């Protein structure tokens, strides 16, 4: 399979204690219809569970839905654990009730784009596709490194 045809694997996770998973389900279905392989882990995920699943499933992207207001802790924590696990090439993205300022601050910490309420699903899909295309462009120049940092 040529690099460009590689299936994009996305973990859709719902961290935290709130039970509002409609958004995560909508985005998981939209990703499936976009041709992604979506691993859906359901509600009440801890960052440790998310990272363990992301590593075992060798996903390209972790997409988290955070509505509880805990995004400033959850996103960086997942980033930190992924780096520890030697999988820091995974894109972290997501959505929820997150202010523009917080989005920018998180972006500064290596988190990808975050999407607010009302974003058309197509926007998130296009973002992930572009990211994957750019990455495979990079991979063609220098083969993806398997080495742990």
């Amino acid at each position: 399979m040529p690099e460009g045809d590689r299936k994009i694997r996305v973990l859709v996770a719902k961290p935290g204690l709130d039970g509002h998973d409609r958004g995560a389900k909508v985005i998981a279905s939209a990703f499936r219809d976009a041709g992604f392989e979506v691993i859906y882990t359901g509600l009440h995920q801890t960052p440790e569970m998310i990272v363990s699943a992301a590593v075992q499933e060798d996903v390209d992207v972790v997409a988290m839905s955070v509505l509880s207001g805990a995004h400033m802790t959850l996103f960086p924590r997942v980033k930190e654990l992924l780096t520890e696990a030697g999988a820091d090439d995974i894109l972290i993205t997501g959505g929820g009730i997150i202010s523009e300022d917080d989005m920018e601050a998180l972006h500064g910490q290596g988190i990808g784009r975050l999407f607010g309420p009302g974003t058309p699903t197509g926007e998130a899909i296009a973002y992930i596709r572009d990211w994957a295309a750019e990455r495979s462009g990079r991979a063609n120049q220098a083969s993806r490194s398997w080495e742990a940092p």
Partner: protein
Amino acid sequence: MSTIELKPENQALLERFRAGKKVALARAISLVEDERPGFQDFLHAALETPRFSKRIGFTGPPGAGKSTLVSALTRAFRDQDDEVAVVAVDPTSPYSGGALLGDRIRMNDLATDPGIFIRSMATRGSLGGLATTTKEVLDLMDAFGFQRVLVETVGVGQTELEITGAADTVVVILVPESGDAIQAMKAGLMEIADIFVVNKSDRPGADRLVKDLRLALHLREGEALKDVPAHHGVDLKRMGVPESGTSQDEGQSKGPEWEIPVLQTVAHSGEGVQELLEAVSRHRAFLEESGLLLERREARAAGRVRDVVERELRRVAWDHAGVKGTLAEGVAGIVSGAETPYSLASSILSELLDSGTK
């Protein structure tokens, strides 16, 4: 065994795989799953030291509780200190090519145990209940050193039976709604079980299904009336009805016999899981004592070789420059009636065989 030079990035991956890094296992699985360049060489190198994990397959209709039971059993194996790998297969959409892999939801309490590795696979067009490369992924997990490798098929109907070529022990999971006595007598899914489980047994109809399954099994074994009380006081067994019958599995006529158990579970409460665990170990012991384990492993090995040869043959045939030309030039002849698909296929085959002998 011949050594093949791996691509440098795959060599690095192999070293980390051998060092027991989970990230390396996960990435090796992707290499195989995507059939990326060099994946066969990687498998060859990784499988140099087969370890023969105990492989258990789980199959049954959608929503029967396969993932929940796998989860419960995995937990039980962990209590025995076995390291467990799980592959869970879910379908790929034929329309979008995408998939929603949701089996992990039922396995959340296993998520952070370092002795457990769970991988979801999408079928990617394969129709046998497993993904195209699931068997190879199981081999990788075996080589990585897991003592138990569990595989769960997609929700199946009657004829997705590839699991038999992937596991030592096949557990068929049904629910009370799965059907009646006639369903239980049908060919296909009902013939591949080493162990039957009627899950969700707290629902009405469970006892009926268990009875029907036992009856169907005894019919197969030629002992239909074993558990059935004499009808109108007539005991057929005393009337000279022959007891002998042909067993459904070759190799069972000699040595110990395996009577397929029909168990009842309620997976989400854990009821019956202990009995399932015991049945699995009894089947294991039977496989070893009867020599059937070796037979199944050999059959599996033969199947794997056939798969690899077929995959290569297809590649060689359709990548062959001459064949491409012959096909492209010949199709017009078929449409105009000068040739048939069979005459053109025949010339392509001779072309391939000729180029092979040169």
